[in-house]
């Protein structure tokens, strides 16, 4: 796949001829210097960006051939995102933040509060369900965001620098959460990160440089 932004003199090649296949059960780290195209790759993998050229299949579907509604549903049902800056909604409690995806799900709001509480409990925040984001620490916020991403049990979890805004001890907790979120090989994780410690759960490492894939190596990945 190739992704370009702008035109003429301002043309930016964010990705150039990158070819990857990600299978369930994989934990893929994406590394590379700033501006190398890591986030762009995630956006395309998650069906957020359809402006690429080349060929892409998401769960067997061509995202450019799907209607916006169908692609959105695919995202809602099968993809989870975790962002560097959490993107929690400040006016909602932790519980309501976890429930946000269900607002747009088919059958509207199907995910009931009980399941959302379970998701919060799974990230160790059972007792903070009623707290607002500003009442939570950075690590707790990211855990709420992970609960939100996992609440609908996606097949693909995409994380863009999930520990980037956290101190190293807190980052460690998050890494442990990822290690526990592999759903027994039913899920794929793609994590953009500079965090060396994540390598202990990774099965594969991609390296991007100036939009090109310069490295693709399997690693031990001793996931518990």
């Amino acid at each position, binding site marked *: 796949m190739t992704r370009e932004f702008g035109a003429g003199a301002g043309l930016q090649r964010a990705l150039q001829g990158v070819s990857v296949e990600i299978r369930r059960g994989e934990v893929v780290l994406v590394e590379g210097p*700033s501006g190398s195209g890591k986030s762009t790759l995630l956006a395309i993998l998650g069906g*957020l960006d359809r402006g690429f050229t080349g060929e892409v299949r998401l769960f067997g579907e061509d995202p450019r051939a799907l209607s916006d509604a169908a692609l*959105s549903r695919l995202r809602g049902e099968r993809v989870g995102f975790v962002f560097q800056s959490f993107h929690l909604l400040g006016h909602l409690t932790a519980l309501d933040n976890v429930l946000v995806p269900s607002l747009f799900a088919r059958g509207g709001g199907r995910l009931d509060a009980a399941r959302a509480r379970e998701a919060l409990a799974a990230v160790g925040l059972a007792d903070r369900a009623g707290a607002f984001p500003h009442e939570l620490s950075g690590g707790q916020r990211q855990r709420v965001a992970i609960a939100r991403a996992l609440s609908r049990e996606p097949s693909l979890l995409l994380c863009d620098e999930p520990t980037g805004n956290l101190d190293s001890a807190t980052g460690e907790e998050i890494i442990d959460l990822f290690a526990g979120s592999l759903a027994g090989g039913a899920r794929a994780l793609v994590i953009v990160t500079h965090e060396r410690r994540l390598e202990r759960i990774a099965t594969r490492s991609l390296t991007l440089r100036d939009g090109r894939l310069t490295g693709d190596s399997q690693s031990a990945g001793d996931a518990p």
Partner: protein
Amino acid sequence: MSPRALAALVGRDVARTRGALASAGAGIVVGTAALVFFLALGLGARRVLLSEVFPLDVIELEPPRTSAGLLALLGGEAPIDGVLPAVATELGATPGAREVFGKLRFRFPSSARGGKELLGRELISHEMVGDGVDPALIEPELRERFQDPLARPGEPCVEDAACGRDEYCERASGSAGGRCSAPVPGLVSRKLVEVFDHAVAPQHGLPPVAGTLLARAEGVPFELSLGSSMLGVARLGAPRRARIRVVGVSGKAIDLGVTLPLAVVQRWNREYGGEAAATRWSSVVVRVASPADTAAVLAAGSRHGLVPADTRARDVSVLVSGVLALLFLVASVVLGMAALNIGHTFRALVADRRHEIGLYRAVGASAGDIRAWLLALAVTVGLLGGGAGVALAWVATRLADARARTDLPDFPYKPESFFELPAWLVALGVGYAVLFAVLGGLLPALRAARTDPAHLLGGGAR
């Protein structure tokens, strides 16, 4: 997105963005209030003016007065101007005409005195006008009392003294003897009562008559001088007196004067004006099904050289419609500005929530969901603003009516309420508010739906 989810989203927005939405909706409130208030006032004015003061569905056609006057000046002898009964029948057959009846004006000078029973003192009218109407055309509840008294003539007589207490001797000029007659029943118009009660009575320290006039079973008697008045004496016949008793208020009665059973006026017109004065209508009244049918009736009338007796109804109607249209325009401008204001607020709101919108997209919201969400928010602002505007307008109409009751002097046709606020006007006000709110929110909603969600993903580069 399900309606429940939509309601949850919009409900949270209203709760957290109260201030901004309220100030954006304030224009909608003011615009809707102005719209509803002015339209209610216009409808109220129209109701009073067009159904009571100048009814729009009634056309009175008569021969042109000026030409008759001119001919009278030139030729000395005025031709009998009148409408042949056949012409009246033909006018009644015009499409849209629901009812037609002839009116026969008094063709003789007359004056009146009376009213002591009702007013406590005698009132004199030096010029009395009146007409005759077929009792069959009168409201059923009045019809029985509104009959030619000579249909059941009394004893022969030559003077009133020979007759019963209330009776008088109806004896035509030149005839040797007459018959005793009960007083001739008369009807007056609501207009006369209104003008008397609110304009004449207060100035002369007289009591209002509207209530008593209707309540008195025996009616209000007065005396009519036939064949002579301040202005002159009839060409034929000799002046004499007759007794009249006002028995009610009728929509068929002459505006300012008294209306008597047709047979009586025919007799008197024959006595003082000759045969033609008794057999030709002085005017023809046509009631149409809807004001739109007026034109056809007017056209049919003009083919027979007849003109409308009174064009004020049409003038007033045009005036009221014009003023209404103007006020509607003013309110629309206010609402248009409110829509711009909402557009501003929504644009700021969408810019503020770029991340939020991106997040929604990332977790499964389609562009359509985002559009629906923001439009639902605009609809909500419109509904709340429109509802508040209608409520405000309602309060304003109540206040204005209360002020009018206490602070405005009494005047003819002063209504209980100056406003009319039918359900459809409430719906129109709220609907209009929603329309403008949606217009204002439309572009920002469309833009929000196009927001590229990929920006959420981190990057120092962006």
